[in-house]
């Protein structure tokens, strides 16, 4: 396929790399944050940093939904699962996320009925097939996933399925970006905007980043050349003194997003006053809860959720990694006490987490660098 070659072509990448280098002002250092974990994955997988001048660094952001779930919410979900008549259903990514009292896998091993599902609709099907059980779906994710959860609740309501509910942990991307911008630890020159979240919310919600914060943002696709092109567009804007929201991923992302997806989220969910993010602390109006209208599908209302706060392990520096203040390998436990097999922090659990991405791909290139320098 023509377009595959175009988005992968090493020759084009080298041309882009040359153009990127030419746009950099001598002596100036640039820091761009890729908000989305999918982008982090692409960057490490394809070694894209090797295509960039040393003065351009990519900083990894908070856009990994599994990574930002605090330990207390994992414990709350396990408390729900420990009811004798409950089946807790969850995406596979969540299963190894450590809470204060272990992970879903640990709880399952101890006897709780916790099942992995691919889709919230699979969870609804489990509810249909087990009318004598209460089936709870562990709903996580940014705006990419929230519409699917909302559609499933609407389906449950339409079909009168009374033994189904969701434990709502959906978060929203804009407050997380605001929290990053407010962080005094980090000075950024621009953002590579999340691709699939933007499919739902569109590009307009990012306007404040250019208008009020004075930083450019480019929504990017997930191919290597998409990301390099976005860096190019960011540098071009800075060089020309522009500061705008641009859409590099226009072949998938409509400028206004998906109106139907936004409508179903608004029908079923509303903003919480505040929500705790792992490593980032409490951020106001940053997450969604089930509206009173759908209270019978809200696990938080149905079950007496303890709502405990659990401090992150002291050794774990996921918070700094999520804010882009630390690179994964700068964390003290990275690759030693904390590995994908025995994760201490969430960034090492999800394939979209910066630590897991770097552990799986980056280490290899670091080895190669070592080999190259030694030969």
């Amino acid at each position: 396929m023509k377009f595959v070659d175009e988005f992968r072509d090493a020759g084009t990448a080298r041309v882009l790399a040359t153009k990127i280098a030419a746009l950099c002002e001598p002596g100036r250092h640039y820091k761009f944050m890729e908000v989305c974990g999918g982008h982090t994955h692409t960057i490490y997988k394809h070694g894209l940093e090797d295509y960039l001048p040393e003065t351009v660094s990519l900083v990894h952001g908070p856009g990994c939904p599994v990574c930002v779930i605090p330990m207390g919410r994992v414990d709350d979900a396990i408390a729900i699962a420990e009811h004798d008549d409950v089946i807790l259903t969850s995406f596979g990514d969540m299963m190894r996320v450590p809470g204060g009292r272990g992970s879903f896998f640990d709880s399952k091993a101890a006897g709780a009925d916790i099942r992995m599902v691919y889709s919230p609709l699979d969870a609804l099907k489990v509810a249909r097939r087990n009318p004598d059980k209460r089936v709870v779906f562990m709903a996580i994710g940014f705006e990419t996933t929230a519409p699917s959860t909302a559609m499933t609740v609407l389906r449950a309501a339409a079909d009168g399925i009374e033994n189904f509910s969701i434990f709502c942990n959906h978060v929203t991307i804009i407050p997380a970006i605001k929290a990053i911008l407010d962080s005094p630890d980090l000075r950024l020159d621009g953002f590579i905007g999340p691709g699939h979240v933007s499919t739902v919310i569109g590009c307009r919600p990012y306007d404040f980043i250019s208008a009020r914060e004075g930083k450019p943002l480019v929504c990017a696709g997930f191919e290597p050349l998409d990301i390099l092109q976005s860096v190019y567009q960011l540098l071009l804007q800075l060089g020309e003194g522009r500061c705008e929201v641009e859409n590099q991923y226009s072949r998938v992302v409509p400028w206004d997003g998906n109106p139907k997806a936004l409508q179903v989220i608004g029908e079923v969910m509303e903003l919480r006053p505040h929500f705790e993010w792992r490593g980032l602390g409490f951020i106001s109006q940053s997450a969604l809860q089930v509206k009173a209208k759908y209270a019978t599908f809200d696990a938080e209302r149905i079950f007496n959720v303890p709502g405990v706060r659990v401090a992150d392990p002291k050794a774990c520096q996921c918070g700094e990694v999520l804010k882009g203040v630390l690179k994964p390998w700068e964390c003290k436990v990275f690759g030693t006490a904390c590995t994908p097999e025995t994760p201490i922090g969430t960034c090492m659990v999800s394939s979209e987490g910066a630590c897991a991405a770097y552990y799986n791909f980056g280490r290899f290139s670091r080895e190669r660098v070592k080999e190259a320098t030694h030969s």
Partner: protein
Amino acid sequence: MCLGIPGEVIELMAEHEDLAMVSVEGVKRAVNIGLLREDGVLDLAPGDWILIHVGFALSKIDEAEAKASLDFLTGLGDAYTEELEALAASDIT
């Protein structure tokens, strides 16, 4: 979980509201297409490519993008294989 998987619409399933049979790398699966309705109108036909996320079509994409995404995702290794296995195990009809 957050990976989008591209698939080609084979047929709209008349007997199930909002479901379409979609081919993902040769595997046929039912996918919910309700989020592509705008004002009740569904602009989708066999041969169209969609981006699938946790069992739902999130957006309509052109074929070139679908192929590109597939190529990218195949290269992801384990994460993509797991996502495909999870999709294969899912039956939302």
